[in-house]
């Protein structure tokens, strides 16, 4: 098997299109198995995947940006920087990439709940075509991704106007090097006493990140007092929507923590 070191996006897409080799972002997931005979496309020298830039609609984060780079870049929204800083430990953050975190497909990926809550999009490319899809459409199920065999995740597009008021919690079993038992991201905009925007997501709970625009819409457009009036119905809706799976911790624990954090998020936002 043959590995490649492309130095342009086009070259990377050619190797990807040829098939057989695995895209290698930071390696921090791939190298756990560390198959000596694996063939990789090392993507760290692809300039189109390394930048963090701003355009008129998005903060465009190259898929090969590391967590350290994201955490230290003021263009990235605070909630994303905070989530990135809580990942593992420095040596892992220095290698691990945003694209790899997403492409790994795990619901425990620490950056994913933030991207879900923020309504981020992914720019996927192959030699054939380019697609820009909401991150929610990327995750199809447990370890099932909307990614064609010739496609690469090139960029994550974060909407520029992510709510300044946010709530992020990663629940792990220790203060560093922790795997999320539950993670929660919440964003809310309240202007002149009215909820302009509300988005929450739950990670590490189910096969994919839980993000329900339909439930969050219950609060959107409401005044704070109206929102308070529907708070119970909102919580009830999530209580039904969250169906945790068993993993390192029980379903019951995950559910209880999700609901506690959701309640705390609302309280922190004044609802």
């Amino acid at each position, binding site marked *: 098997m043959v590995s490649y070191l492309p130095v342009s996006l086009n070259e990377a897409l050619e190797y990807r299109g040829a098939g057989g080799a695995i895209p290698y972002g930071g390696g921090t997931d791939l190298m756990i198995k560390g198959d000596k005979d694996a063939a990789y496309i090392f993507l760290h020298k692809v300039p189109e995947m390394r930048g963090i830039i701003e355009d008129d609609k998005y903060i465009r984060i190259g898929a090969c940006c590391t967590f350290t780079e994201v955490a230290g870049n003021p263009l990235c929204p605070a909630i994303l920087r905070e989530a990135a800083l809580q990942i593992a430990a420095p040596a892992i953050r220095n290698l691990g990439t945003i694209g790899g975190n997403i492409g790994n497909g795990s619901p425990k990926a620490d950056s994913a709940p933030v991207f879900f809550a923020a309504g981020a999009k992914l720019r996927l490319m192959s030699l054939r075509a380019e697609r820009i899809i909401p991150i929610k459409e990327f995750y199809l199920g447990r370890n099932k991704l909307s990614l064609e065999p010739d496609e690469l995740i090139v960029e994550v597009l974060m909407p520029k106007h992510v709510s300044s008021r946010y709530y992020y919690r990663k*629940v792990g079993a220790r203060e560093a*090097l922790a795997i999320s038992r539950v993670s929660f991201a919440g964003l809310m905009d309240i202007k002149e006493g009215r909820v302009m925007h509300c988005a929450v997501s739950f990670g590490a709970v189910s096969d994919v990140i839980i993000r329900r625009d339909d439930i969050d819409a219950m609060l959107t457009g409401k005044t704070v007092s109206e929102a308070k009036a529907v708070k119970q119905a909102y919580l009830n809706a999530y209580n039904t929507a969250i169906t945790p799976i068993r993993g390192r911790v029980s379903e019951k624990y995950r559910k209880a*923590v999700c609901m*506690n954090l959701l309640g705390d998020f609302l309280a922190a936002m004044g609802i």
Partner: protein
Amino acid sequence: MNIKESVIKSDHAMKITGEAVYVADHPTDGMLFGRLLRSSKARARVLDVRLPALPDGYLYADKNDVPGANKVKIVLDDTPVFADGTVEFIGDPIGLLMGPDEDTVNRLLERIEVEYEGLPPVLSIEDSDTVFFDYTYAKGNTDKAFAEADHIFEEEFRTGLQEHAYLETNGLIARPDGGRITVHGSLQCPYYVQGAVANAMGFEPDRVQIKYDTTGGAFGGKEDYPSILAAQAAVAAYKAGKPVRVIFGRREDMEFTSKRHPSKCGYKAAVKDGRVTAMDIDVKYNAGAYTTLSKVVLQRGIICACGVYNIQNLAVRGRAYKTNTVPNGAFRGFGGPQPFFAVEMMMSHIARNLGVEPLAFKERHVAAQGDVTSTGGRFHFPVPILLMIEQVAKACNFREKREAYKNQTGTRRKGIGMSLCYHGAGFTGAGERDLIKAVAKLRKYPDNKVEVLTANTDMGQGLNTTFAKIVANELKIPMHDIIIANPDTDRVPDSGPTVASRSIMVVGELLRRAAVRLREQWADGGEQLVEERFKEPGYVIPFDLEKFQGDAYPTYSWAVNAVELEADTLTGTVKVLGAYGSFDVGTPIDRNIVTGQMEGGTMQGIGFASMERMAVDGSGKIRGNSLSDYIIPTSLDIPNLQCMLYEEEYPEGPYGAKGAGELPAVGAAGAYIEAIEQALGDVRVNHIPFTAEDAIEILHKEPSL
């Protein structure tokens, strides 16, 4: 030289530069890589082992290749070198595959087919029908005390598996050499390993050479285990006629090597006039599939089962049960941490039942110098616990915080707890006198350098430094004139194993006495050899192991731990705000070294109570077999760790030193859980590890609907 003052550790330079040679650092030219074929069943008869065609140079060894006894000499000899017809736990070694290329060995290993006839495994103490060891002892008249009691309280406490998680996994290299065999690598006790290899090879011990390589942590995990692995590697190397290296991967080490015994301790206590007058204690340990060290772990566990307290009437029973799980063995504290957790919680709960502050209640029961021990021995020396409580209480404002943290609301709630413990210094009972009979030597060379000859190993605890300090101090020569090479059974006498917090107290004292004699006989430019042998101190009341009567230990090291923490009621997670301890190990032979031991041990003790959880599934398989699943504290988890020393000199130890290494791992769990109980609102906790899931369950926090 002030013996307490810290010096640069003698192993510092070689370790910080990366030059120290651990077992995996030896060149592998001409060496075979060995991997154990392990049982995938918890309990089964092995009907057939079918090997794939082995390429040239690849070999398989099993029970049929063991030239001596297919038994590993530990305490009893029930552990087979390789499975003989049956397997008793998942991972039980059946054979060893070896060859010149590691990847090829791994691939071939996966192709070996083993045919089993499965038997239903026994996985818990409750289901076990085999009691390996069953001891009872008593003091006073418990029947009378219970009959006259104002109150009787009864509770049960459980503790879980704890994994050593030394940073360097187990690993050894065996080298055949003419009619002899050499085994070297990561180990605590060269002469234990020599005995085991000689037994398996059918050799006289002088045909077996065991050499210590710099070892990356052990904590008891390399006390008995290397005897098993060395026997296997030696048999394999002998068959191959080539050196064989077996070094475990992290998952293999976590899943298949010894751990701390899970326990279930039943406590029944009689209270009369506000005092505990009697305890009836039932200690049960899950020993795993073979006895290994369970006999002696259990002995230590039941002797300390009533804690630091003077309980007039005592009935104690202890049993170690066979289960089809990995054999549990030595782990820093050696059977002590389990009952100390139980008795500390029991005393705390009794106090709360009676409506008094636990600490004040405990203080009323603390034993004093001259009191009779649980086994009818004496606390011959001062018991400084009450003074140490004040030292810790002052450091953390214990009593004020304990009061302030009552009746909290909100999502972040604090708690503080304190626990008391001791560790009997050295071997239990007459082991030192009757079994070990330690010998230590000093050899002086013509250039006036002096070599320390003992079998004791420096696994990081600083022994090479502290031994050298003692000898240099008596000889009044510079430290750099003291030579301590890695122990090699061809060169050093059997000064006993590096276990039981005995090395400084026992062997250190032998070296001090040897140094005194050498100083007296010193002949400049000559070569001299001085030898010292262990003598039991005259005041010791001989211990009778049949009756559990007498002085179980020559003296005791004491500790007081306090833990302050904050629980998050939304997530059940807990942040340790501070961990405080006072430790009496007698005179510290180097303050930095002793403090470092206390800090590291305390962290292990808190890990034991909190995050260190190892699950076994219904088939008997250990689930948390990686460092991401079985987690240990990082630098961020116990940020405010303050360990203080209290120096109650022990006249029989060198300069007043007594047992140190294990003490800090014994008692912290009780303090942690007492703090948890307070933070969560005066709840009762009867098990460790206590996890975020447990906290949420206790809080009965329904989704905040």
